[in-house]
């Protein structure tokens, strides 16, 4: 089967590229759902600033393996204009009425993820992001976004997983401290159950 992976064959491979903030990746690891991201996407770009966050979350080994495999690509060569743009976005997120952490430095990783999406050469189709303030900043810049619960919903629609798997995944994230509300989990589950009944 070696012949399948030569350069000629790879030319017609279509890449489904996205950019991700730290939150959805951590949720995928917490709920053992990385296989869903691996089915929906071919490559995930992350800004280098996220690496220290994965270390803090105890996820650096798992993310390291995905970087080694080429599934996650770390972007670090930001030009001065992009660094400035990230600082502006980070300040905007910090200043948002929904943000509790008011130090802009703290929001640089998600700001750089937004900057990556804004890059002219970016082929990324959407940004994976959960926090409301950062989603707002992305939305204002017309950046297409999806959060981890939305990814699970899509996976369910595509029959990669069942509504019960979505319930279990979000509940496990919540159990490990991720701020998905019980209302969100129950409503998403009910909606998926209702739509599966209609099929």
């Amino acid at each position, binding site marked *: 089967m070696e012949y399948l*992976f030569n350069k000629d064959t790879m030319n017609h491979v279509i890449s489904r590229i996205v950019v991700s903030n730290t939150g959805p990746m951590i949720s995928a690891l917490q709920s053992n759902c990385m296989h869903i991201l691996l*089915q929906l996407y071919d490559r995930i770009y992350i800004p280098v600033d996220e690496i220290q966050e994965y270390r803090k979350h105890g996820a650096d080994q798992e993310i390291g393996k995905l970087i080694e495999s*080429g599934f996650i690509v770390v972007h670090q060569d930001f030009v001065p204009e992009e660094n400035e743009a990230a600082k502006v976005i980070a300040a905007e997120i910090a200043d948002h009425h929904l943000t509790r952490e008011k130090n802009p430095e703290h929001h640089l990783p998600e700001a750089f993820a937004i900057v990556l999406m804004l890059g002219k050469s970016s082929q990324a189709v959407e940004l994976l992001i959960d926090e409301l303030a950062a989603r707002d900043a992305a939305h204002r810049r017309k950046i297409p976004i999806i*959060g981890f619960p*939305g*990814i699970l919903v*899509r996976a369910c629609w595509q029959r990669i997983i069942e509504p019960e798997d979505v319930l279990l995944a979000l509940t496990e994230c919540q159990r490990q401290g991720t701020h998905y509300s019980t209302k969100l989990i129950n409503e998403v589950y009910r909606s998926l159950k209702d739509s599966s009944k209609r099929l």
Partner: protein
Amino acid sequence: MKKKYEPHEPDEELLSAAEAIQDAKNSEARWQRFEKDQRICRVLVELPEPAFSKLEKLALQRKRTVSNLVEEVITDLVDTFVLPEEKA
């Protein structure tokens, strides 16, 4: 024992169910547009275990994804078997 990961920014507000469903709808529409632009058709392939796990492991070893691998295999099959017949 299952590994636990520290939550990301547990104090910050996250999205609602309505936003999650809307995310999924918007995303689905985006990827359908992407597929149309790239002239690709989505195919559902259901693999029994352990075939899927093995394919997933192989894909990671080869620095590919499962979707990539399946896409490559099917494309090569078409190139090898279908196109010569069409040319004849």
